[in-house]
């Protein structure tokens, strides 16, 4: 069964016909040529396909495209404004927070979504107090980013890069 869907991807309105079996990830990569979200495990276990879906971080390998007709998606590609990188992207570059780079677009989108969750006061599994203020230390960053795997093991610098941006408070 085919279905017509419309998506807003990185600020551009796109319209396509998809088989109902198509995931949002495959629709972006194979049909729209948006290859920033990566296919790692394709089973919701690695986080490489993380994007901002209607403003919140989400994996899209387990999302049926037909169910997201009308959705707004921002990929790592769409985070930069012209040549000006998003502060998280800039920090990943400057802090060597990657090696092969395959998980990086997912890491970056996840970090941006995660910092917004912290800003909104959402506690995590390692927060001392469910209702207190959040001290975004390395343990908090590790826990909140645990949905993004990095097989190169660049975790140390990923945590440092995110920590730097959090300290600067420079995320929009």
């Amino acid at each position: 069964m085919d279905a017509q869907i419309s998506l807003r991807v990185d600020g551009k309105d796109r319209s396509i016909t998809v088989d109902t079996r198509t995931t949002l990830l495959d629709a972006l990569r194979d049909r729209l040529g948006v290859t920033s979200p990566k296919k790692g495990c394709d089973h919701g276990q690695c986080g490489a396909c993380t994007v901002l879906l209607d403003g919140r971080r989400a994996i899209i390998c387990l999302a049926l495209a037909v169910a997201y007709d009308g959705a707004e998606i921002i990929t790592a590609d769409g985070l930069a404004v012209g040549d000006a990188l998003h502060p998280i992207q800039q920090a990943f570059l400057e802090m060597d927070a990657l090696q092969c780079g395959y998980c990086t677009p997912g890491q970056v989108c996840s970090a941006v979504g995660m910092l917004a969750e912290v800003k909104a006061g959402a506690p995590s599994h390692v927060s001392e107090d469910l209702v207190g203020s959040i001290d975004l230390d390395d343990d908090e960053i590790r826990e909140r980013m645990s949905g993004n795997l990095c097989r190169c093991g660049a975790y140390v610098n990923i945590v440092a890069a995110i920590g730097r941006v959090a300290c600067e408070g420079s995320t929009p």
Partner: protein
Amino acid sequence: MIPFNYLRADDVAGAVAAVADHPDAVFLAGGTNLVDRMKLGVAAPSLVVDISHLPLDQIVELSDGTVRIGATVRNSDLAAHLLIRERYPVLAQALLSGASGQLRNVATTAGNLLQRTRCVYFQDISMPCNKRDPDSGCSAREGYTRYHAILGGSAGCVAVHPSDMAVAMSVLDASVLVMGRTGERTIRLVELHRLPGDTPDQDTVLGHGELITAVDLPPFPFSHQSAYRKVRDRASYAFALVSVAAALHLGDGSGAPGSPTIRDVRIAFGGVAHKPWRATAAENFLRGTAATVANFREAADVELAQAVTLNDNAFKITMVRNTVASLLAGLTRSQVGDIGGDLAGQEQKP
């Protein structure tokens, strides 16, 4: 994945009718488990009815103090809701210990309850499995059983229910509101999931086409004195080997010096059974006794007397006992301070 038709439901009655009319139709909400099972070939619906746009995404407090959680409230929104964090910490903690941030933003309340086991043999369609393919046999029993049941299993199935949230909800005496063709009914959460018996293909008591619309948390006086502890193979983003949810209500110090009396207690185990395991035998043992680590451990043993272990999961007995003792000791300390002696760091004995 076999081809399927997709329908975006406009209202609850329409969603129920659409699924009830088709024997192999399914409800779709966040899809984080269902779509994975469809990819694996474990689920092969011919019709997918999307309920994620129905107005079931609110958390409201009713006039009697009951908190009503809509079926499509996202796990992250439920965990972050101030009412849940303040009044039901066990539930917020359980939710935050499950999956990852990205998944919790998508996964829903009802979907969490109805997610299916991650037993590797259930998820591998090349292996016999009574849950996936009735009467084909159980590959787990003589297979790798580190993650399998020690309570309530049957000859035909030793799978465990994977939810953390449901374990917390079972100590909160939650009820599930269900809409079917013939009207609405309410099911106690502890009675929603079933033991496998001879029909492990049925996870719950829901009939085909019945839709969970909400979960009710009734008020109870010590819900804020509750907590969740999860033990797993890595520090984050893993299913429980064992988990314990508990709420503890201590007396006003009328017990022996240094050991307050337990007025009331609620305990449930996760990762050990085909359903969230409400530990009523342990609760009955503890009510009226002194809040000591020795009693906490004995209560766990009373509950675990009926446990049957498999080749690779005998460790769960010790793990449940220690986790019960540790969690209840923590809840005791948080109410009366460190009373020394029996509670002073002894809860982790093997």
